Structures are given as C-alpha cells and as structure tokens.
C-alpha cells in the first residue's frame, strides 16, 4: 500500500464511521429508552425493564390508534391493490387510444397534487361529502393519491410478463376471470407484493391527511396520536412515547426486511413515494 492508498483507506472509513454515527445517533434512543427503567431524552445504557410497555397498554389511545393505523393501511392497500391490478392489467393488454398519455398525465398529477399542496380542496371536498372525521374519507383520499403510481408500476410489471401465458390458457378455454385467477395474479405476485408493501408504508407513516381530516381522538391513527403525545399537555410521558414509537415503527421496518429477503427487492425509490 502506498501512502496515498492508506490515506484513502483511512479517509473512507472515517467518513463511513462519521455517517454511521450521524444516522444511528437519533435511532439509538428508539432502541434504549423503551427498555430503560427511567427513560430520559438522552441516549443511555438502559437499566433493563419491560415495565414501560405497561403504560402503553394503560393509555386509552395508544393501542386503539395502532389499530386505527392497521385499518387505514389495510383499507387503502386493499383498494389500491384491487383497483390498480385490474386497471393496469386492462391497460397493459388492451390497446386504448391515448393510453400512454393518460398514464403520464395521471402520474404527473399525482406527484404535483400532493397532500401538502392539495390540503385545502381535499379538506373541503371531504367536508362536502360528509366524510370529515370518518376513516373512509382518509382511505379514499390516500387511495386516490397512490393509485396512479401503483397503476404505473404494475403496468410496467404486467407489460414485462409474456402474453403467451394468457393466450395459452385461452386456447384451452379459460374465461377472462379464470385467466386472471389462475395465471395473471400468481405470475404478477411479486409485483402485487411490492405494491402492497409500498402502499402500507405510505399510509402507515402518513401524518398530514388523517391530521386534517380526522377530529376525534379515538379515530386517529398512530401517526397523529404519536404527535399529540408530545405536543399536548405538560411533561411528555417518555415511557409511553418510547414504547409507542417502537411498536409503531416495527411493522414498516419488518415489512421492508421481509420483502427485501423474499423478493430480493431493492426499492430504488419504489417503496416510499
């Protein structure tokens, strides 16, 4: 090794060590505080206990809000998955005039009309529809925003699966729905899984839409309830916040790890946004 190479080597590892510290430092609290007998804001080696989870169970909103998050995520993902699968399949297989232009326009719109930029009309629309403070309203708004991207990604996926599978099934007499059930859905499964995980992650962490559309504390998802835990009323309960944060974060992290292992899927901008 020359001097220059050694310097490069040391520089590289110093840089990586610094970056690792930068990214890990805030996260460490999430690993230590939930298990600390006396959690503080600072990261410290915990005096191990599971007692903090007791406060979580005792809090009237904590588990309920997690359940609400599950509802929102499940509802939105189901709608996005079914509608996007049907639409992308039809768009991939039948020539509709202006199809590509339509898809690009929708994609453009969905990236332009974001939750932040469209919060005023969205709020008013949901009020007019009488869906304010109802989870259905949140689900529909989120699904509408996610659908264009979901259709776009899935159509790409459907385009890349050979048509001869379906043609073969057709020659043997399968109906359109049989083809969908026996052939298309099983073959598109990795794509559908990708879209599901992507949609769940989007909804799970979404703060703004439920924040402006839901009023009652018992309907709020975890993202909003978490926020109220540290903004509303006096001294924040660190035992509650830390355990709740952990429980709230685990599903998306686990899902990422699962999909990553199962489908060797690197998201490349796919999973979030």
């Amino acid at each position: 090794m020359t001097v220059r190479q050694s310097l490069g080597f040391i520089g590289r590892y110093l840089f990586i060590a610094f970056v690792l510290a930068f990214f890990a430092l805030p996260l460490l609290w999430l690993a230590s505080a939930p298990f600390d007998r006396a959690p503080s804001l600072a990261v410290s080696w915990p005096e191990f206990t599971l007692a903090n989870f007791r406060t979580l169970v005792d809090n009237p909103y904590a588990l309920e809000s997690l359940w609400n998050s599950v509802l929102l995520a499940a509802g939105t993902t189901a709608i996005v998955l079914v509608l996007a699968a049907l639409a992308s399949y039809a768009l991939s297989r039948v020539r509709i005039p202006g199809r590509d232009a339509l898809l690009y326009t929708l994609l453009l719109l969905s990236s332009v009309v974001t939750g932040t930029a469209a919060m005023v009309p969205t709020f008013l629309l949901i009020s007019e529809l009488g869906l304010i403070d109802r989870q259905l309203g949140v689900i529909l708004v989120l699904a509408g925003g996610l659908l264009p991207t979901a259709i776009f990604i899935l159509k790409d996926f459907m385009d890349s699966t050979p048509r001869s599978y379906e043609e073969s099934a057709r020659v043997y007499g399968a109906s359109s729905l049989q083809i969908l059930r026996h052939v298309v859905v099983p073959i598109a499964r990795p794509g559908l899984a990708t879209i599901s995980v992507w949609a769940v992650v989007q909804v799970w962490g979404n703060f703004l839409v439920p924040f402006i559309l839901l009023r009652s504390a018992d309907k709020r998802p975890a993202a909003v309830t978490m926020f109220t835990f540290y903004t509303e009323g006096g001294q924040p309960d660190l035992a509650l916040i830390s355990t709740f944060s952990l429980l709230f974060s685990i599903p998306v992290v686990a899902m990422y790890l699962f999909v990553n292992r199962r489908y060797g899927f690197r998201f490349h901008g796919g999973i979030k946004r």
Partner: protein
Amino acid sequence: MTAPLQQTDAAPAGQPEQPRRRTAVDDGDAAGLGRGRAAAFVAPAMLLIAVFLIFPAIWTLYLGLTNWRLTGLAAAEPEFVGADNYLDALNDPAFRTSLMLTLAFVFFSAVVGQSILGFSLAWAFRRLRQGIRTVVETVVLMAWIIPASVIAFLWIALLARRDGTLNALLGTEGTAWLLEYPMQSIIIFNIWNGTAFSMLLFSSALAAVPPSQFETAKMSGAGTLATLRDVVFPNIRGHVLTNTLLITLWTFNVFAPYLITAGGPEGRTEILGIYIYRVALKEGALGEGAALSLIMILINLVVASVYLRLLRERKT
C-alpha cells in the same frame, strides 16, 4: 383505426347467409378481454383518481378566486373575489418569507445535502466490505422508512435543551438548538431523513457503469477526481437529473418539519406547506389558502414536467 371498422361493416354484404357477429376481441388483446370489460376494469380506479385527485386540483383554481372561510359568514356564502387572493398572496411579505425559506430548505437539504451525501455513500460503498455496507445501508434506510411522527420526536429528543443527547455529547449543555438554529436544524434533519433515496439511486447508477471504463481510467493513471469527472459523471448524468428533480419535488412538499418546530420560532421554519396549513386550516382563510395551494401546485408542475420530459426522452 377506421379502416378495420369499415371492413367489418362491409362484410355482411358478402356473406349474407351468416350474420357476422364480430366478437369484442381486439387487436393485441391477449387475454380476450375486449374493450367493454377492459373499460370496466379501468373505470373504478379512474373514478377514484378523478374524484380525489383531479377534482381537488381543479377546484383549487376556483376556490382561490373566492373569499371562502372555514367559519363565519363567508363560510356559508362565499363571494367571488377574483384574483384578489392571488395578488394578496404574492404581495404578502409572510408568503415571500415562507417561499424564501422553502427555497433555502430545498436547496440546502435536498439539492446539496441529500445528493452529495447520498452519492458519497454510494461511492464509498464500492470499496467497502459487504457486511459494513449492509449495516450502513440499513441504518440510512431506517431513517427513511420509520414514520415521520416517530423520527420527529427522535430529533426533538436529540436536540433537546435539557437532557438532549447532542448537548451531552458536545458538552454544550443548555443550547436550545431548535430555538437558536431552527432552520439549520430542520435542514440537517431533512438530510438525515431523505438521503436513503439518493444513496439507493446512485448505488444502482454506479453499479451500471461498465467496469472496463474504471479500469481504463485506472490504467491511464487517473486520480479519483479525474475518474469522477471523466468516467462516472458522463455515465450517470441521467441519474443525477432524476435524483435532483425528484428530491426537489418531494422536499418542496414536505410537512414533517411541522412535527418538530410547528413552523416556529416566530415563523422561522414556516416552509410553504406549513404556511398554507396555518393560513387555511388554522386561521380559516380557505380562499387564500387555496390560492396558495394553486401556486404550490404550479411550482410542482414545472418541476414535474421537466422530470417527466426527461424520463420520456430516456425511454424512447
């Protein structure tokens, strides 16, 4: 598209004995869906998109022209006020301040921060052991996928004046980072939050650079800078553009800093999204908020159309 239709129409004349029932089977229709069923498959998705995505966008245009308010007289019967809201917004120093803050936020946290850090990581990964690489990648990704309201609190805890981890580490007990350096704080926060995307994008971009080009550079004795300039950059120019435009768009619409600073102190972190939230939903000036929304949508539109044009050019 007209020729085959005419063909079909003309056919019965030649074959009078059998009325020609042309089934709905279309050209290139592998699944035999037919137009009707295809339309039925597409319709529900389009309906949802139309109602909850397209309609709000168009409605914004109209709302911005009224004095609609959340409560009071103008809530019941909003009046048409023309371009007043737009002119007010553009002339309002608060809006201009917010826009400037947003531009600074986007520029420093996304265009500079996330891009450079993301690229540096991807570059360093090339010569790093797989195990270390996986650890660093996972940690950076966690910062990206953990819900915003959780990471917001993690940063509040990190930067807290009393008991904060950062103060403990630096020995700067009592420094209120979020009050003294609010903008710097949310910029650093956003770099931390969003670098994963640039890292992933540039990792795949670098993996696609032909190894023979690196070897050629090495054999001609090029240093790191020369290699970056002559080999890497020409190869990943498209990725750099994609990355810049996407993270610009996303950062421009970010709402997460609200969870940390709520726009304060004294509006010093009131980026556009937070400003609209305050004007429209907290103070109830829906018409003015809609005007602001439209301005935001238009800015988004410019960035996004540049991006889509580039995307389409690369595809064809």
